[in-house]
């Protein structure tokens, strides 16, 4: 199953609901293109909802890192929402869990952007 992504706008935050596999090839390319597209539209507050991500490999993890640094370098913020246990464990063992701002609750995740932006 390939990756699908749907973007919703909630206040100032673009919530990206990702379904399927983020792996080398189509999944990573799609995610990279989507992030580039959103930044091109000046959407710089991005929340990636990973609740329905069934599989992520080393390239997919690298793509998340790339998205995080690209958005940060453009003055935006990229946060993660609703990790599955497997994605959670992979971010733990790759020492990336503390790099990303990770949330379980969408409303709280959305409000965290506002708080950071107004701080």
């Amino acid at each position, binding site marked *: 199953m390939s990756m699908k992504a749907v973007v919703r706008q909630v206040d100032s935050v673009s919530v990206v609901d990702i379904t399927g596999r983020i792996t080398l090839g189509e999944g990573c390319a799609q995610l990279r293109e989507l992030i580039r597209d959103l930044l091109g539209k000046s959407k710089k507050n991005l929340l990636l909802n990973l609740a329905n991500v069934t599989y992520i*490999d*080393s390239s997919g993890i690298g793509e998340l890192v790339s998205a995080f640094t690209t958005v940060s370098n453009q003055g935006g913020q990229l946060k993660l929402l609703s990790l599955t246990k497997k994605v959670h464990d992979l971010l733990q063992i790759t020492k990336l869990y503390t790099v990303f701002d990770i949330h379980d609750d969408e409303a709280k995740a959305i409000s965290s952007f506002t708080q950071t932006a107004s701080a």
Partner: protein
Amino acid sequence: MGAEDRVVDVMLESNLKNVEIAEEISQRVCAGAGCDPDEEFQVGMAVHESVINAIWHGNKNDPAKHVWMQFRIGAGRLEVRVRDEGYGFDVGKVPDAIADDNVLNISGRGIFLIRQFMDELRVRLPQGGGTEMIMVKRLNSKRQTNEEGS
């Protein structure tokens, strides 16, 4: 390795679309070997990463080349071999993916994940050419003992 090991050999065309086929075969082999769900995931991830490594780095994404996999199920262990037609690499020289300077690197986590999920990893350069990754997973003996006793 023992004389009563069960062996599954697979030859795949060097195409990224075949990575999911490699994963499916790995799942079936793991089910037959009595792996628990965690072991099945871990072996599957190692197969995924090693086959991608073989296609992408070893065979340079050349569809005319092949990737050979062998699963060997023995007493309390599963050995997986993945061979490409490349020129090899020194596994000892792969940078540490979780060193402070490397944590935010875009790539370089494949071998790290294989090391995390398998109990042994060796790289061999066969006489006929290519590169062979040999990965061993020691299986949950408690589960195996239960099944043997049931």
